[in-house]
């Protein structure tokens, strides 16, 4: 468990000293983290929830690290996407990458600069994510959030253009103020309960104005960081202007971190405060995100902005978990459904951004209007984009379908038909914006096709692999659901909360 944090942190520090070896260090990390996650999976399967008391003190004085099914799922997703993006980035940031025809070759030291700084910051990002998913302490979560935020912002700024830099600056200010809201909330919780340990908070089952306000502050901060509608405004410019591997990381993983904390807070620490008004409120915001994000995606002129708005929309689905999970009946389905969607979205969106990166690389722009016939010059990227689209739309057997199916069933079982409508409409809108891009892929060009550019193979294969994973993830949904039951903090708590009206 500790390896998941120590390994990327060490390699990040080493990569600062020897930037030339950043790539190699990332691979070491990938191998170690991959092995550690596998090991944890075994432990969890055999022994249930694992807790590690840092420093041997134990909560509430010390900090506990904890792995349950939910945390492990997030760690797996992080490891998977992390490894894939690292593979892609080895060539993306390589200075000798041939960018194709009308691209001015950038100065070599500029590329080297980016290569040198990407790896340590990427490893910090990985550290932050692993630490975040492992932590059971709300103050420690604040530290991980900051680590995550700094890494994300810096990676966006690595793109270097004015748009990226402005986006990064706004991202930073928004992220910092959100963190302060969260921290103030943590302070209030500490004032009321005298502890910042999640299980201890859960055990106290306190309530009162201070906790309400604290939760409000923390939630406000977290939904801003998670870019839930209407606090999503910072996301599209930041995600669209970052370098492709960074966009993939941000959309696939970074916004999921705050969401994860939100789940821990509401379901685990303060389940009694999770009233129907609150959950329906989250649902309304989620629905707003789905509709608004999809409509905006339909209106974008740039491919990466379209994909970024699609992230806004897809994040909305995750928040439908709250209204669907806290009612009686079908709660478990909604729980695994939303998390299935999370995993599927991570794979699909990473694939999409990486594919979009390839398109940008080869064509030199990403205006949707100007993409006619790109299936010919970049067949594999087009294919990856399409497959990832299947999962976003929610067509079977993709992970996106499995997730939506479970959410749909939960909504139908509970008679909350309004979410059913949102789920179906969201799928159709997603189909519309995915098709909008793919139409250009199939457009016939007169004359001979543009020359097929020799992109490095790994840059073609990685998005395709991720997209395939997203499509086949549906078959893993049963296993994932069983994994989520390990510890199932939220459900156990929510169930208890229901029993004591």
């Amino acid at each position, binding site marked *: 468990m500790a390896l998941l944090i120590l390994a990327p942190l060490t390699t990040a520090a080493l990569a600062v000293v020897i930037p030339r070896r950043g790539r190699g260090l990332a691979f070491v990390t990938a191998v170690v983290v991959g092995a550690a996650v596998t090991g944890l999976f075994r432990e969890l399967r055999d022994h249930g929830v694992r807790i590690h008391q840092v420093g041997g003190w134990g909560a509430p004085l010390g900090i506990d690290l904890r792995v349950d099914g939910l945390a492990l799922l997030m760690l797996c997703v992080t490891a998977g996407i992390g490894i894939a993006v690292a593979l892609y980035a080895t060539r993306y940031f390589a200075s000798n990458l041939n960018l194709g025809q009308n691209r001015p070759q950038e100065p070599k030291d500029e590329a080297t600069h980016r290569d040198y700084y990407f790896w340590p910051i990427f490893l910090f990002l990985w550290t932050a994510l692993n630490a975040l998913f492992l932590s059971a302490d709300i103050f420690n979560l604040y530290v991980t959030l900051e680590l995550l935020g700094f890494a994300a912002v810096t990676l966006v700024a690595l793109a270097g253009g004015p748009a990226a830099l402005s986006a990064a600056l706004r991202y930073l200010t928004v992220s910092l103020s959100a963190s302060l809201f969260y921290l103030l909330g943590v302070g209030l919780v500490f004032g009321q309960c005298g502890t910042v340990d999640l299980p201890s908070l859960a055990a106290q089952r306190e309530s009162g104005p201070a906790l309400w306000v604290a939760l409000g502050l923390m939630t406000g901060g977290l939904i801003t960081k998670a870019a839930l509608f209407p606090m999503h405004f910072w996301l599209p410019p930041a995600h669209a202007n970052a370098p492709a591997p960074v966009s993939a990381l941000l959309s696939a993983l970074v916004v999921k971190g705050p969401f994860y904390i939100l789940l821990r807070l509401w379901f685990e620490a303060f389940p009694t405060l999770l009233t129907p008004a609150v959950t329906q409120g989250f649902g309304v915001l989620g629905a707003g995100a789905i509709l608004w994000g999809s409509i905006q995606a339909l209106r974008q002129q740039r491919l990466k902005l379209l994909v970024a708005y699609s992230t806004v929309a897809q994040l909305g689905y995750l928040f439908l978990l709250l209204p669907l999970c806290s009612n009686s009946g*079908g709660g478990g*389905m909604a729980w*695994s459904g939303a998390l299935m969607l999370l995993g599927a979205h991570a794979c699909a969106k990473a694939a999409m951004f990486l594919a979009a990166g390839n398109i940008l690389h080869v064509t030199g722009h990403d205006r949707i209007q100007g993409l006619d*016939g790109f*299936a*010919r010059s970049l*067949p594999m990227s087009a*294919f990856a984009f399409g497959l990832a689209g*299947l999962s976003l*739309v929610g*067509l*079977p*057997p993709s992970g996106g*379908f*499995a997730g939506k*199916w*479970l959410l*749909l*069933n939960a909504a*139908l*079982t509970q008679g909350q038909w309004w979410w*059913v409508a949102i789920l*179906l409409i969201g*799928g*159709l809108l997603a*189909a519309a914006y995915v*098709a909008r891009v793919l*139409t250009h892929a*199939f*457009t*016939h*060009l007169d004359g001979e*096709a543009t020359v097929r550019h020799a992109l490095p193979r790994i840059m073609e294969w990685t998005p395709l692999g991720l997209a395939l994973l997203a499509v086949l993830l*549906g*078959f893993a*949904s*049963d*296993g994932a*659901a*069983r994994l989520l039951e390990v510890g199932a903090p939220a459900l156990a708590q929510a169930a208890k909360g229901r029993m004591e009206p």
Partner: protein
Amino acid sequence: MSVHGLVLLGILFSSFVTGVAIFFLKEENHRTRTWLNLLGAGLKLILVAALLWGTYRGQTYSLTLEFLPGIDFALGADSNSVLFVTLSTVLWFWTTLYAVGYLEHSPNRSRFFGFFSLCVTATTGIALSANLVTFLTFFELLTVSTYPLVVHRGTKDALGGGRIYLGYTLAGGALLLLAVAWLHSLAGPVAFKARGVIQSLAAGHRVELQVIFVLFMLGLGVKAAILPLHGWLPKAMVAPAPVSALLHAVAVVKAGAFGIVRVVYDVYGVETASELNVLQPLALAAGATIVYGSIRALFQDELKKRLAYSTVSQVSYIVLGVAILSPVASIGGLVHLVHQGLMKITLFFGAGNYAEALGIHKVSEMNGVGRRMPLTTSAFTIGALGMMGTPFLAGAVSKHYLKLGAEESGDTWAVWILTVSGLLNAAYFIPILWRAWFKPPSDPHPAPGSAKRTEPPWALVVPPVVTALMVIWAGLFAEQPFSPLAWVKLVAQREFGH
């Protein structure tokens, strides 16, 4: 996993693997691609033959994989499946051959044949699905894999048609998903079973089940092109001829019709469905579609459009047969699933040949083609005559049973509809045949090459001739074992328990 399960998997993979492999072939590898295509099609044919033989001898085939929590990904082969899978596999073989010839010189062939194979994988998957969720999976896969075929030419028209196609089918898919999920929340996992699985719910959830049925019909009706959901079909005519053949005869509309058969027979059960009063409206919708399609067909000058509206009309024969509460009518409907496929594919092959060899796209340009392309035109004529219900051809058999069934159940209005439709069919087909055989060729034809006989290459001629012969076979030897009719009688026996 038993050997028998592997047969099912083999049937799916024979085309799936071929498709994937073809994607990675270079455009120039013409020979390899052709061989791969024929190999896949041939292998599938053999496996399906084995399946047919095995099922006939009472062997059961099934295969399950872990899928959603509580729901398996399940394949199976009941008599219904076998009927449809045989049809699609046989026709696919000939369509492949035809497509290889047809697209000889067009660009993006690897992409085309890749999706072509995926499309047929989806169709056979639909046939072999043993529960609703698996069915839904392949149903959507079919949508997705046909879209690239519809837009294959990449022209403005093609992209527009593709957009409409995708809009209709995905919206239909969403309704179907809703229906499946809703039914699941009431009844749990729904595996197909003869005579339905929801009898016990019918009393307590009457209204819900009625609404779900409507949702099912809307979702499936889009693909089956039932009025007023047929709008995409004529628009999708921009696709290359083999694709049209596939859409109309083998895959898409058939998948819709087959889905309706499944839902009525194996999910609701005919008795339960009729208790819920949902069959009568379906029958009326089908009747309306039959007449509407025929009338619209009358006024189309573009050959493929006329055929398209004819499809709209003919597919609803199947639905009508299913919706009329009578075993005899369902025999008629189910056998039409096969017969319509045989006839319509012949007609589309013919239309494709006219376009390919002479550049003829319109009925008004067809004067005298019979003399220039005798083989193609003969095949076309057999298909058209079959459609009109000429005795000893396939169409007559289905119509006979449909009419008998309608009389048996007292739906005399349906008999009238069938009669009127028969007349309309004649009205829009006879002028074509008249022009083709009896009018002098109006030179010059739109396309160059005015040699006396201009039959296209053999790869384009053999498929229509073969399917035309099958139309004759299905009509003449309808009572022989292994004819479509004989098999359908088996199915009906199972569904009605007679």
